[in-house]
Every structure is written in structure tokens, then in C-alpha cells.
């Protein structure tokens, strides 16, 4: 079947099997910042925002995501204009092997959209669907707190360049 998808603000017409997951369709069409991990909804490596809501793309039929806004970590910012969340992960050293990072960044973004100043408990709950195989959770939580501060201060990354919230 064919369907129109909106990924990071850009429209695309893709062909896919009726039973294909959103994860498969995204990766087959070059959206490789969405990582393939467990394929069972445990690890969060394949997380995307579907209409602004954090979901595991391996648990979403691609057909149900047609005509809906899909945001990946690349949609939040890039090397030249990183988001406050992305820059905070860099500054806090919250990236080790990097495989979980796109999902962690999106989970953090979704958490801070709902809870701009999360408690420790809310940080743990907000990121409870994302596993880090390097077990770097201390620095990841630090990055969330740093991103929260920066967003509340107006989205200043703290680094050299400007960034969006």
C-alpha cells in the first residue's frame, strides 16, 4: 500500500506492506536516526513523537501514522542549531555509545513539554521507557535537569551557538 507521511515537517509518499511497523518504514526510507533495538517496546531506541506524543515506532503500524506529524530527534535540531535538550546531552556528557540517545532526547523533550521543571521522580518516570545499554543514567538525568534549566531560561543552549527550545 501507499501512504503519505509527514516527517519533521516534510511530506513523503512511501510504499509499504500493510502490516509494516512505523520503525521499518522510517528506516527503509532513510530516517535512520530512529534506531532499531528490541522491536518489542522495551528499549525506546526507536522512539518518535507522533502528533507530539512519545511512542515506540516498533509498536505502531505505519498505516496508523499516515497523515500524522512524526518528529524524530533530527526534527528537534541539528549540529548547527541544536535544541536545548540536544546541547544539554552533549554538555552533560550524557552520550556514551550513542545508540539510545535519539530516543532519550525525544523522551526528555516530551517530558519537558509536559513538566518544564520535573522532579527526580518525574524524570525517572518520563524516561522509564528508554534503556541505556551503557547504563549512563546519572549523566542522562543530569542532562534532563540542565535542559530544564535552559528551556526555562529561554532556550539558551549555554554553548557557543543559538538553539531552539
Amino acid at each position, binding site marked *: 500500500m501507499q501512504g503519505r507521511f509527514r516527517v519533521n515537517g516534510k511530506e513523503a509518499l512511501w510504499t509499504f*506492506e*500493510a*502490516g509494516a*511497523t512505523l520503525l521499518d518504514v522510517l528506516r527503509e526510507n532513510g530516517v535512520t536516526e530512529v534506531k532499531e533495538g528490541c522491536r518489542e*517496546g*522495551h528499549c*525506546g531506541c526507536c*522512539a518518535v513523537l507522533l502528533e507530539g*506524543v*512519545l*511512542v*515506540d515506532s*516498533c*509498536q*505502531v*503500524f505505519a*498505516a*496508523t501514522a499516515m497523515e500524522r506529524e512524526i518528529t524524530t530527534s533530527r526534527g528537534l535540531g541539528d549540529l548547527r542549531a541544536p535544541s536545548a535538550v540536544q546541547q544539554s546531552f552533549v554538555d552533560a556528557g550524557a552520550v556514551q555509545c550513542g545508540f539510545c540517545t535519539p530516543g532519550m532526547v525525544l*523522551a526528555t523533550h*516530551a*517530558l519537558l513539554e509536559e513538566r518544564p521543571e520535573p522532579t527526580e521522580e518525574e524524570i*525517572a*518516570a*518520563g*524516561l*522509564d*521507557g*528508554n534503556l541505556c545499554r551503557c547504563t549512563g543514567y546519572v549523566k542522562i538525568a543530569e542532562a534532563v535537569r540542565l535542559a530544564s534549566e535552559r528551556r526555562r531560561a529561554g532556550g539558551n543552549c549555554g554553548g557557543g551557538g543559538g538553539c531552539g527550545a
Partner: protein
Amino acid sequence: MLLRRDLSRIRGMVDLSRTGLSGLRREGEAFFLGATTTFSEAARALRTCGAAPALSRALGIAAATPLRNRITVGGSIASFPLWSDLMGPLLALGSSVHLRGRVAKTVPLEDYVTTPDLRKGTLVTGCSFFDRPWRVWYHREVRVRFDYPAFTLTLLALVEEECVKELRAVLVGCRNRFSRMTEIEEALRGFPLGTELPGGLGRRFDVAFSERPHGSAAYLREIAGVWVERGLSALLGNGKDS
């Protein structure tokens, strides 16, 4: 679950998320939860209107954030996995299931889960329940917080004039999928708050478990008894574990 099946031969799909069966609404004295309401949406809506705190709490800590944003009330009722965080509170609240299709009527949730015939050729459109000023206690038995629970325990107590007027105790995750612990409910009817709970309550209900990754059947039965006693102590406030 559907994602694990081979769908290569299907000719079309109906996306139930676009059928408008989502949301929490009040119908007279009852609350109605639409089948396609996600756990996150349901927890948020219940919290906002202060309804069914046991259900709101259970849905708010079920699975993990991205899954709570995806798992629906209707899907979870229809499939009733052993690790369900939804079914205990719903069963304890005495909920009803609204069906369409071959059987188009509203039936008690307990009947729906125990009668296979009600599940064939029917679509769950939602569930409804009456909320009362319950004292609530909810426990999920997990090894780590993001684990599937081995079982869940829901205790609801209606207290009038410092005595237990009604108690509902439901365990989900046992060999029969769920158990209403009527022995406990009856033993504590009329129980005066603040007094010593009867001893041995944790052994006074008939529940069997299967061997599970969380532990042996005997271990799970023992630990369920411990949590029932702790929960009753916390709920009825005699001080020891509250």
C-alpha cells in the same frame, strides 16, 4: 500482540484510533472510558476530575511512558494480559463493558472476562463504572520499576462511622488470571478502624499461581499474602505498615 502476527495476507485494516471512541465522560453518576483512550490519557483525565484514584494511579505507572501513550483501555480489556495494570482496579470498581457486534449490550466486566462467547465477534467500545469515596491501595509486584508485574493487588474500602462498610480485594496475575478475594472481603466487613487486624489474613484466601520468571508458584503465593497484609494495614490504618 497484533504486531507479532503475520499480516502479509490481509487486504485492509481499520484504524480504530480514528473511530472517535476515545475519552472519559460522565454519564449521570457513572464514568465512561472510551475503548481507544490510551492509558496516559485515561490517567490524566481521571486525575483531573479526581475520579477513581486507584485506576488513575495504576494506569499512570503501568508499563513505560511510550507504551502508556499507546496501550488502549479497550485493547487491554479485550486481550487481558496477565500483567495488566488496568484490570484489577476495573474489576474492583465493578465495571461494565460496552460491546458492539454479535453481542451488542453492556455486561459486567467479570462476566466478559470469564465468558469466552462474549468475546467472539464483538468489539469493546468502552467501559463504565460508578465511583464512590473509596479508600484505595494498589500494589504491583515487580523486580524493577519498568518490569511487567508478576501480579497486581487492588484494595478498595468504603468506610462509614469508622467501620468498614464494604471491602473489595482483587488480585490479577494468578493462574485463573484474576481472583476476587471474597474470604478477605467478608472477614473484614464491619471491621472497626484503628483496631488490630485479624492475624493470618495473608493465608486466608485461595489463590494459585503458575511458575513465572518472577518466582516459583509457592514464592508468589507467599509474597501475595505478605502484600495483602501490608495493604490492609495501610488501608485500614492500624498503624503497623501504614
